[in-house]
């Protein structure tokens, strides 16, 4: 591997890499606006100019290839001067919008000015006046005064979605990002444009004026809205003594994963975060004879295990049924299988999932659950939840609130009335709430630890990005508690006390997950 010197440090970098990447890999920051790792170098912002010994002019780090023996300086006086120059040019024609601009706090222009600029403005002229609220896309507003013409947006639409919705119009100082007439950007990936815009030129109308980014906590997670498993960052408001928190989650952003979603997420996933806060189950209740009593999980678990135990004792295992869904994690599906099928001889496993949608040729899959592949690999066979099959049961554990889809409300009501004990483990309120005995709130994927398997068979671990505030608990813990109470394979299940422990057990048993 060729060795180069960056600021007197020896950096080994693979042939074919640019100086910018080589520096990044060595932890040496080089500023840039127009460069983006997903696109070919553009070379127009001129912010990444560095000094190379022996060459008369400064060279672009983003497009100069690593060559054995290159001596690069990223902080020498000419480089410092050049960076100041670029910043000064950009700020000369940039509006003083920081107080009202959504990008404040995550804006490259702000960050670089603080790091490399910090000079007083010497611009005495009148700035170019431009359109500030141009409707660029379904959820996108373009402020042309803020735009620094990095062309990331245009290139994204040319190279990634290949929809070529936008272009650069006019020439010179009058250049601007534009579309044809009112044919604004209307594809399933438009939200990425607000994310890759380095400044506040393209803003997301979903996020516009809602909060300041420094009030938000960013946590990593995996999007559960389809089986791609795009990596995301959830930005939530943890609460602040002096501000009124009107909601918890303010936005979802793409998180880079070269093996899954590159740098992107689709709009369906990006804007579909309302489910995290809306319509959530929060009270654990027991509907006994028309009266609703609030219980703790321990109390509910005790009652449930009694019922299960008595049925098993009477050799009525075949009268126990479990409704699963494929938004359950690998651990949860594994536990359901090992505890109930293997441990208790339960045969009736049903699958009730959200309905499929239309997939696109990029990230969004037709399957709208996170872990269908996980169910396949765990190897649990499931059947459709037909009312006839359900009505023949004495005890039904329903995971998920999706059972209502696909069965007529009357049919469902009838069937469930015939089942003596019904427990619902659901994250969201639904029509099922009134049809069951126990309603146990559970967290969504964003609120628990676990792993899911995406459509390509990639197992992705995730940690809770949000707190789970409900009365209930994660399904994997509920299943483990039931196993312990029921004394199913005591030696095996008693030591499992964490999600990681369950995953390790899963890995031991099923080769796919190793």
């Amino acid at each position, binding site marked *: 591997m060729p060795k180069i010197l960056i600021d007197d440090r020896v950096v080994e970098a693979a042939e074919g890499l640019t100086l910018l990447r080589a520096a990044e890999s060595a932890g040496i920051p080089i500023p840039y606006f127009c460069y983006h790792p997903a696109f070919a170098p553009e070379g127009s912002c001129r912010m990444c100019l560095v000094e190379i010994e022996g060459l008369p002019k400064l060279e672009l780090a983003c497009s100069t290839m690593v060559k054995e023996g290159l001596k690069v300086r990223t902080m020498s006086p000419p480089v410092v001067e050049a960076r100041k120059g670029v910043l000064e040019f950009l700020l000369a024609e940039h509006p003083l919008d920081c107080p009202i601009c959504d990008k404040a706090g995550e804006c490259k222009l702000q960050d670089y000015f603080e790091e490399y600029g910090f000079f007083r403005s010497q611009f005495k002229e009148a700035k170019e006046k431009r359109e500030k609220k141009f409707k660029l896309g379904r959820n996108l507003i373009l402020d042309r005064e803020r735009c620094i013409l990095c062309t990331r947006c245009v290139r994204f639409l040319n190279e990634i979605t290949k929809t070529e919705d936008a*272009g650069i119009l*006019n*020439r010179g100082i009058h250049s601007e990002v534009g579309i044809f007439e009112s044919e604004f950007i209307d594809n399933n990936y438009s939200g990425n444009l607000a994310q890759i815009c380095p400044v506040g030129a393209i803003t997301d109308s979903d996020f516009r004026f809602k909060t300041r980014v420094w009030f938000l906590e960013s946590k990593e997670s995996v999007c559960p809205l389809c089986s791609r498993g795009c990596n995301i960052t959830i930005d939530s408001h943890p609460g602040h003594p002096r501000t009124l928190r009107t909601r918890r989650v303010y936005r979802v952003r793409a998180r880079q994963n070269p093996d899954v979603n590159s740098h992107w997420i689709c709009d369906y996933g990006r804007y579909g975060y309302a489910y995290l806060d809306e319509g959530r189950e929060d009270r654990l209740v027991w509907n006994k004879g028309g009266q609703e009593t609030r219980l703790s999980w321990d109390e509910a678990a005790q009652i449930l295990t009694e019922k299960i135990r008595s049925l098993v004792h009477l050799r009525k295992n075949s009268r126990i049924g479990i409704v699963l869904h494929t938004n359950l994690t690998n651990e949860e599906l594994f536990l359901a299988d090992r505890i109930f099928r293997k441990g208790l001889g339960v045969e009736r496993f049903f699958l009730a999932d959200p309905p499929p949608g239309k997939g696109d040729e990029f990230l969004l899959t037709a399957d709208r659950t996170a872990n269908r592949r996980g169910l396949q690999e765990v190897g649990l066979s499931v059947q459709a939840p037909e009312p006839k099959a359900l009505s023949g049961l004495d005890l039904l554990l329903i995971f998920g609130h999706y059972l209502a889809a696909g069965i007529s409300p009357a049919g469902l009501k009838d069937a469930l009335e015939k089942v003596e004990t019904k427990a619902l483990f659901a994250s969201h309120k639904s029509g099922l709430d009134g049809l069951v005995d126990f309603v146990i709130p559970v967290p969504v994927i964003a609120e628990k630890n676990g792993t899911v398997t995406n459509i390509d068979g990639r197992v992705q671990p995730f940690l809770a990005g949000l707190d789970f505030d409900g009365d209930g608990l994660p399904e994997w813990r509920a299943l483990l508690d039931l196993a312990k109470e029921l004394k199913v394979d005591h030696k095996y299940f008693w030591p499992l006390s964490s999600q990681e422990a369950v995953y390790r057990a899963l890995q031991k048993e099923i080769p796919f997950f190793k």
Partner: protein
Amino acid sequence: MSPEYSVSLRRKIDEVAARYPKKGAALLPVLHLVQRETGCIASEEERFVAQVLGLRRIRVREVVTFYTMFLRRPVGKYHLQVCSNLSCSLLGAGPVLDYLQQKLGVGVGETTADGRFTLSTVECLGACEQAPCLMVNFDYHGQLDRKKVDQILESLE
């Protein structure tokens, strides 16, 4: 209602486009052809050209707005383009422009009420040895003074 473009224009477009390995490369010559027939390139023309050359409409607009010779709005019968670059300025382009404004009663970028003359300034026309120069549509006129300007205007019907 999309405007009709003449058969001869369409034929010429096909002819020109065939000279290039990729049809889209013919965009500039084709826009010249269309502008000659329609006077300017409005969104209807952009759509037409995009469709004929298999290009996205935004790509056509990018080009139309980049090059100064493609007009987005119609101009008068005679487009008087006065060079405002250095050699012409040295030799009196300023007074020539002033005279034209005064004589025609329009400012730079404007068209006379009768629609005959539009007055513009342009950069170097490549005829500096005849400075000061102007271009009427595509005809060059140099060594301008008031008398010559009068002669030119009179010769234009």
